């Protein structure tokens, strides 16, 4: 069955035989120039060539992404939201590839329009045509209107809307408006798949001309009862009253209603129930009456898997097939990565904003019983140049439980202050990645596990250092 769907997709490639029309010459030139740039960028060892080729191709033909997307035999899925984009895109890609489809996706977290373009270029042939069945694109929230207009996806997933990098994006409200305008412009044939548990996402979905497909968690046993400090969308959009939460799952995502009954969580069309968490190692849950077991940890990943499952169902994949396929998935690059060094287990987890950090901390401390930590904080553009958000993360969770905490990254000194005021004794701050690793390794016994929770570029820096020491492969090879 799997082979047949692949064969069917390939059989749809008859358009190959059409004569080259004049308007596609520009596209072909753009594709070739972009591809050449990517090859040069990789050959010079300056990186994975994940966005620059897109830049070059778009300069030659601004409509190149739109044209490439229309080469896809099946269509596209676009994934946005503050947290979980990369993991969810990876899951959807994994599901589609297992069903025999050729998938193009922007895997390396290059989620602006240039990154999506570069990914499409990468799979285009010398005639400028994209040879793939599905496109799976993770798209930065602010780039969504443009991406959706160009890609015309069959399904658009909105995972959540948390506060993230205010210096770069403006405030939550303007992001929400951008997503709303993108989703409102979708054609009727396209499905919006939205998180019902996120009040700000729900507000967007309730205003759409075509009702979305709602997903949500339904298991009070894994809920918290109070909103964490990082919660930020908690007033009723109609009357302004503070929302009442019956359950809080992640950040401000949960089961909520307005005390004046003006607004409430939409009833999910697809839910995850009977959730069993096992540290960073795995979880199991029932989704659409199908039992899922997956080697990813943390409640936040339950949302990602549920969203991917909802997308798969919308695209016609069978629940039984998806359950089977998900058993063997691997974590997306750096989102959660395990490696060994001198008998120590290192668990590298991307933690880039208050909602995400609170969840990785909760998973590391409560579920995985972690005692040794490296907290990496950088303030480059991709991390957010404003580090004030660390004060909204509940590092107090580490109190009396962590034995070793190494503040690391270009803002290691800010992290050291944060830990001091959280009542968590810490090692001296180490801004230099090699020294930070040395400090962690020295304090960690053989056979023990250390958790490395890092912002985006702090993770890249540590990973580069690990590569230098021969511990992991460079990311464009994974």
């Amino acid at each position: 069955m799997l082979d047949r769907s692949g064969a069917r997709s390939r059989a749809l490639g008859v358009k190959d035989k059409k004569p080259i029309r004049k308007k596609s010459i520009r596209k072909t030139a753009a594709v070739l120039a972009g591809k050449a740039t990517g090859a040069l960028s990789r050959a010079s060892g300056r990186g994975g060539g994940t966005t620059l080729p897109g830049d070059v191709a778009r300069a030659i033909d601004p409509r190149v992404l739109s044209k490439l997307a229309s080469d896809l035999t099946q269509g596209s899925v676009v994934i946005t939201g503050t947290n979980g984009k990369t993991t969810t895109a990876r899951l959807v890609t994994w599901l589609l590839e297992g069903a025999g489809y050729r998938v193009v996706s922007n895997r390396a977290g290059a989620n602006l329009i240039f990154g999506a373009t570069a990914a499409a270029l990468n799979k285009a042939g010398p005639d400028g045509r994209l040879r793939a069945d599905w496109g799976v694109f993770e798209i930065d929230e602010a780039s969504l209107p443009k991406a959706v207009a160009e890609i015309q996806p069959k399904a658009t997933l909105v995972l959540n809307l948390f506060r993230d990098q205010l210096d770069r994006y403006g405030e939550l409200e303007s992001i929400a408006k951008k997503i709303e305008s993108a989703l409102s412009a979708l054609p009727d044939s396209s499905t919006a798949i939205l998180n019902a548990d996120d009040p700000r996402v729900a507000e967007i979905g309730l205003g759409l001309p075509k009702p979305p497909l709602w997903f949500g968690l339904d298991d009070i046993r894994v809920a918290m009862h109070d909103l964490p400090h990082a919660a930020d969308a908690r007033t009723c959009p109609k009357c302004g009253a503070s929302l009442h939460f019956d359950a809080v799952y992640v950040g401000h995502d949960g089961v909520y209603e307005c005390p004046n009954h003006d607004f409430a969580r939409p009833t999910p069309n697809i839910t995850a129930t009977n959730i069993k968490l096992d540290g960073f190692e795995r979880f199991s849950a029932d989704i659409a009456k199908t039992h899922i077991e997956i080697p990813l940890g943390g409640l936040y990943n339950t949302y990602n898997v549920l969203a991917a499952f909802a997308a798969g169902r919308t695209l016609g994949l069978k629940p039984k097939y998806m359950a089977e396929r998900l058993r063997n998935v691997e974590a997306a690059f750096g989102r959660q990565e395990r490696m060994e060094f001198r008998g120590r287990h290192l668990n590298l987890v991307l933690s880039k904003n208050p909602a995400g950090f609170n969840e990785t901390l909760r998973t590391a401390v409560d579920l995985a019983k972690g005692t040794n930590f490296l907290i990496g904080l950088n303030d480059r553009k991709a991390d957010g140049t404003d580090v004030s958000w660390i004060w909204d993360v509940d590092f107090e969770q580490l109190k009396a439980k962590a034995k070793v905490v190494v503040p690391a990254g270009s803002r290691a000194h800010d992290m050291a202050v944060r830990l001091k005021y959280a009542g968590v004794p810490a090692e001296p701050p180490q801004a230099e990645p090699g020294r930070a690793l040395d400090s962690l390794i020295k304090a960690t016994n053989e056979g023990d596990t250390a958790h490395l929770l890092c912002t985006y570029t702090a993770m890249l820096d540590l990973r580069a250092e690990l590569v230098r020491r021969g511990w992991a492969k460079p990311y464009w090879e994974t």
Partner: protein
Amino acid sequence: MPRSKKQAFTVGWLYPDLMNIYGDRGNILTLLKRAEWRGFEAKLIELGRGTTQQMEEVDVFFFGGGQDREQALVYADLLEFKQPPLEQAVRNGAGVLAVCGGYQLLGHYYQTADGELFPGIAMIDVKTEAGKRRFIGDVVVDANIDTLNPKTLVGFENHSGRTFLGPKARPLGKTRLGSGNNGSDGMEGCLQGTVLGTYMHGSLLPKNPHLADYLIRSALIRRGVDELSPLDDSVELAAHERILQRAQHAQSR
């Protein structure tokens, strides 16, 4: 004379659920911990919408920034409930730290790009007008407070409002790096009596422990406290120093 009961130090957080976007909790934690470490009984009163409870007990109020939607909700409540007890508390010597949106709301008015005026509560002699460009980045200020050691304050700004001071308010300091109040007169923040307004977050107080102590001490003078015992601030001042070094590096380029 030995005291049987610890002396209280109380922080009042105005609208903790709505005006908290720039890691403002760091300011609250810094005030509370630094009082606690010195043996005070540190207490936090959260002043959400509709409540004025225990505002007379507060030593230092904190008023942070919010998103537009939340700020509109706060504005209505401020005029209806908080203004009179807040003014009374300040007359009795309580301190106020107002950052960004809170700073603007305590002034005379905020004028939008379309010329619309939103009156503030005029507790401080400042007015704010909308600007086109957003000021975003590190801020280093040479403070206008004699007792501070070091003299510098460091923070991060992110605002499009241009704030101008009237004769009753004096600037918190002179900007060495960053745009400050309005990007034109080289000044940052304001001081008027026990009210301190600023655009600096980051959070402000954790990397400026000397300013935190200034606020604590100024508010406790009325309770007969004139000296605060010294603390080990090496971790905080190392983070402060890193920002100064970056600023120097940025200027020399």
